[in-house]
């Protein structure tokens, strides 16, 4: 009797079944939506990865092209074709003597004479000086 009373006071069976079916449909629908979302995102990730790889490869190819264009041999040939050539260095004479840096002074192999002008007679370069009269060597011409 008690069981019968409970059954009477509960939801009708067809409503319970309807709710259950509705929940089932909702579940599958949500799963479908989520699966679709995952699939779309997955495709996007795949495409993005492919694009990233392609860009990496393109970047490597461009870097190679730039490096090849900037190769020393190629640059030297271009410079030569444009009329550039190696130039001997020209040192300008100094008006005043430079004070040697302290640590440099300690490294000197030749002792500086008392007057501090020249440590040793300047070396002569019989063969080289003859070919390089334009080099001032830090001295007033």
């Amino acid at each position, binding site marked *: 009797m008690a069981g019968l009373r409970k059954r009477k006071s509960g939801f009708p069976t067809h409503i319970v079944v309807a709710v259950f079916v509705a929940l089932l449909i909702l579940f599958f629908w949500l799963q479908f939506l989520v699966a679709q979302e*995952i*699939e779309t995102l*997955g*495709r996007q*990730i*795949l495409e993005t990865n492919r694009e990233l*790889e*392609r860009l990496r*490869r*393109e970047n*490597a*190819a461009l*870097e*190679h092209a730039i*490096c*090849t264009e*900037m*190769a*020393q*041999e190629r640059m*030297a040939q271009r410079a030569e074709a444009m009329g550039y050539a*190696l130039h*001997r*260095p020209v*040192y300008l*004479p*100094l*008006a*005043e*003597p*430079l*004070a*040697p840096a302290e640590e*440099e002074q300690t*490294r*000197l*192999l*030749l002792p*500086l004479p008392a007057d501090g*002008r*020249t*440590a040793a007679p*300047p*070396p002569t*370069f*019989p*063969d*080289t*000086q003859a070919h*390089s009269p334009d*080099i001032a*060597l*830090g*001295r*007033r011409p």
Partner: protein
Amino acid sequence: MSANTEPETNDAEMTFSRLRVLAFFLVFGLAVVIGQVVRYQVIEAHYLRQEAIAQRTWTEEIPATRGAILDARSHPLALDVYQWDISASPDLVSDPEETASALAGLLGQPVEEVYAKLTAPQKWVPLADHVEQSVGEAIAALDAPGIVCTPKPLRVYPEGDLFAHLLGIVNDMRIGFYGVEGFYHQTLQGKAGHRTVEKDPIGNPIPIPPVEEEPPQPGAQLILTVDRNIQHIAYEELRRALETYGAESGSVVVMDPRSGAILASVSLPSYDPNAFAKADMKLLQDPVVSSMWEPGSIFKVITWGAGLDTGTISPGTTFYDDGSLEVGGRVIRNWDRRGHGLVTMSDGLVQSLNTVAAFISTSTGKKPFYNYLRRFGMGQLTEVDLASEGPGMVKLPGDSNWFPSELGTNSFGQGIAVTPIQMIRAVAAIANDGMLMKPYVVRAFVVQDEEGGWRTVPVEPMAVRQAITRDTARTLTEMMVRVVEEGATEAQVPGYRIAGKTGTAQIPTPYGYHPSDTIASFVGFAPADDPRFIVLVKLDRPRTSPWGSRTAAPTFRAIARRLFVYMQIPPDDVRLGRSGGQP
């Protein structure tokens, strides 16, 4: 009734026995099913799971990027680009005609040929290998069913043959050989990763996150001590020297003597590492670390160093040179076959006298003399970080092939074999106050840490040992300055004090020394009081003159002159504040 009862009893029994049979078959069937379930779910579960995974998944290797090699100024010297391998699975090609016409234009092949491949009764056919980047990308963009496009990394060297020997090569199997590529192969290659993805019945990956993924670990980038501008200076001047002096081959090494860092290393003839397969195999080895030669007079600085450091001689020690000296039963003569009378040790080095060298080695004694050779690293690997280094050859007293006369001949660089890297390192020790450094070419590693960021790991210079004392090194430096000022004048650069030594070595053959061919060399460093660079020039079989002073010394000068400018080293008077523009 009884007649009726009997058949009923029989029917019941029959029915019962039928039910028993049926029950038996049902139980048996159930047992079989349970048995199979146990078999599939328990006994063979692991194997079947693996089979199922293998059927629906696909594991692909993700190759690691090989680290780039950069020069001291971070300019790429070796890097990876991509080429493509194009292949097809004919079974999966949906429209062979259209696909063939699309591919033929891109691959530059006849349509009929491509069509034949696409319709071949095979599971897989290669269409083209080593297709260039733009074509490969275009074919991949077609997204044609059944067409497989695989990008493959290819090592390229934008500077061509400029760094060929120093860098080495990477073969088709992506294995590095020779030079930096060979020595640092493991560091550069990185570690390949893998990715396992699920695939659909056609074989295309399903766009869901991978089942399993281990990302590749890229190889470390290497930053070298080598400066491509200095390398180019050395290359140009060496090439000019080979042309001018008619030498067969040659090498130039530039090093920072204070640290042992190699600033340039060139050998000619060279090869294009981008097409190394076409090159002569003999050219692939780096002569700077692999080729030995009898150094000749250039070696005398080591002998003088030993004599000075043991106190056997001083720069002013005198020796009467009558033109010959007998050591161990062998008569040693000077290069000019003349006697020079009373000479000091300084004079002996300036005039490069073999008799004086033999006098020093014999006076020093064989044990101390060979001990100093070891201290300067002769006959030992320098452990430079370049592949295929040779140890040179030094015969020691006690060896079966050592003769007493070798104490004399070794003193001026005969009967001994060294590699250019050994020789320059030994002389660099003199420039570096007697401290022998380990030569090196990699200044820093750029490695990826666990969080994916990049960090730089610097390489510190490494001192090996004090070969000679600081005082000895400075005294010897002054003697070497005299060599350049009075002897090898063609090595001079106006305004700079340079310490150096020439060498003219005879070439040993199976029948004694070659009558005319020589190996000319010069090693020098500058500025003498505070060396910033040391240069070794070696020219093999020069034709215009056999002498190092006439061929290698001027080559040194040409290089040094440009290095002074490039490295911004002012002339000595300016640098030391001695001129001050006095009239």
